[in-house]
């Protein structure tokens, strides 16, 4: 019974993890400029990675390797937004203008 619950919990976590990573990939491909892409890159991807890592931790159960997985989870959650911030900041520093609805109407694609 417990095994069965654990199995399905793992399936659900992995499914959602894949879904959010897919959203992140779609976002990076579809969105119009670097700032907008950074949104999905940092957020949907972090959540996707987090869910997948949680599934791994659940599968490994009560053993030493789980500690590493949890550490990895925390590490990803702290560093990913910072990395996205660093990239967005560097884009702002190099003077890339953000895409807006108006700029699209003017036919300007950035």
């Amino acid at each position, binding site marked *: 019974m417990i095994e069965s619950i654990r199995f399905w919990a793992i399936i659900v976590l992995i499914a959602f993890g894949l879904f959010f990573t897919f959203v992140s990939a779609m976002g990076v491909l579809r969105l119009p400029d670097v700032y907008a892409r950074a949104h999905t890159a940092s957020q949907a991807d972090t959540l996707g990675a987090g869910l997948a890592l949680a599934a791994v931790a659940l599968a490994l159960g009560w053993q030493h390797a789980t500690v590493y997985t949890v550490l990895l989870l925390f590490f990803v959650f*702290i560093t990913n937004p910072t990395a996205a*911030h660093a990239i967005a*900041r560097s884009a702002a520093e190099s003077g890339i203008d953000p895409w807006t609805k108006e700029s699209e109407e003017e036919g300007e694609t950035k």
Partner: protein
Amino acid sequence: MSQTDSYDDTYTESQVIMTTVKIIAPFTLTYGMFMSLHGADTPGGSFQGGAIIGVTVLMLAFAFGIEPTRQWLKNSFVVGLVTGGVTIFIATGLATMALGGNFLEYDAFSETFGIAHYWGMEAIEVGGVALIVAGVVITLFFATAAGFTPERRSRGTDSLDREVSDDD
């Protein structure tokens, strides 16, 4: 206030990046040393451990700027790291030879002192590989950063001084 006004024209280190680095630096350093010390019995190996120790310093340098980091980590300390590593490496090797084995043949230790093969490996892993790798990573980085171009280096000193005083 317009956008150009708020994006000030002096480059300052980002507080967000600095604080993240501040928080994760102790953990990565601990982890790097852990890997170096367990290099003999886990597949991670102390090469990676040394690399992580070096990377921790690089991370601080990226977040705070090179000059403050260079002042924090004296050059002599880094050189000491490398020479210490090489010394331990060679000393372990020669010790095995002195005991009648080949260079780095750890079995000589267990025959003479009755200690496990493991400890010779440990000495090489920690003393030799980890220290050398960490030292070389840091030295190469600072050397590359310092010798960017001679002209920029001299021009940069005064702005770097200001950077030191502006940053935390």
